[in-house]
């Protein structure tokens, strides 16, 4: 059983981090000592990669940078346990990692400092949820205004002909103003919270000019607050 294992060779890869405060001559000695360790266990080195000095993502043994070395070799599986024990003892190796690679694996060269393209994660489009509150406002505007017109008609019964075109013009104006408000509110969404306060201020002024009743103005102010909450509280997952 053990004889069969020692005869076959398996492809491995080792990555080691070497101490940073070291001159070039000493650095070469350390790398040669590493390779000698591998040859003792019957390994054949196929590919080398030296990344040089790199910063760590977190401090390792109270150091902030170190030399990275990657070696690909064909080794005997029964003697790798001793290899790891020897690597733990060596003073100039801070961390090591041995991995089994797929057959015929040639390591590619990677750039860790280059900027990555932002095409990996798909962004979901947010659905528009605006038409419901707009319709309610248009109806409320038309209701109190119609009440005013009815009140005005009663004292001015003599001027019936002028009241008729006035009625037609007034609701037409209201519908135009409602349409303008509809256009402004989807435009607010497109701007994405950049200028919602400025656009809501002129819209509020138009409403105040049309209506002067306290009850209807209170209703509208509450709806405005709800709208602002909906616009500002679009919190995505922090992913």
């Amino acid at each position, binding site marked *: 059983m053990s004889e069969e294992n020692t005869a076959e060779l398996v492809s491995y890869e080792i990555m080691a981090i070497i101490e940073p405060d070291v001159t070039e001559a000493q650095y070469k000695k350390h790398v040669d000592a590493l390779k000698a360790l591998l040859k003792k266990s019957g390994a054949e080195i196929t590919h080398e990669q030296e990344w040089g000095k790199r910063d760590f*993502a977190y401090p390792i043994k109270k150091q902030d940078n170190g030399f990275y070395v990657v070696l690909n070799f064909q080794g005997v599986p029964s003697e790798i346990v001793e290899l790891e024990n020897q690597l733990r003892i060596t003073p100039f190796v801070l961390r090591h990692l041995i991995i089994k690679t797929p057959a015929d694996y040639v390591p590619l060269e990677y750039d860790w400092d280059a900027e990555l393209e932002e095409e990996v994660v798909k962004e979901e489009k947010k659905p528009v949820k605006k038409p419901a509150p707009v319709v309610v406002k248009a109806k409320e505007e038309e209701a109190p205004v119609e009440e005013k017109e009815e009140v005005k008609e009663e004292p001015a019964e003599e001027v019936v002909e002028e009241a008729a075109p006035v009625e037609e013009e007034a609701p037409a104006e209201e519908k135009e103003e409602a349409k303008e408000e509809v256009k402004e509110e989807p435009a607010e969404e497109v701007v994405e919270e950049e200028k919602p306060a400025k656009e809501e201020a002129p819209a509020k002024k138009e409403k105040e000019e049309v209506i002067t009743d306290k009850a209807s103005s209170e209703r509208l102010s509450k709806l405005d607050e709800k709208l602002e909450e909906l616009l500002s509280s679009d919190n995505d997952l922090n*992913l």
Partner: protein
Amino acid sequence: MPNKNRKNFGKLCYPGTTWVDYKNPVIKKYVTIYGRIKPRYYTKVPMVVQKSLSRAIKNARIMGLVPFTK
């Protein structure tokens, strides 16, 4: 219907296989702001690739290439 999603991960995997290398800097895109691995329903990664991806991120964390937390 063939799985169209498998073609979109050419940069992640080693060409010709579904194995992810821990030395690949594309791994940084599958980690959140706080250092956690992103879930599969968010990145739409196939199951076979996600298993080797998570193993690669954990190996990269051990070797100091990717942080554990921020």
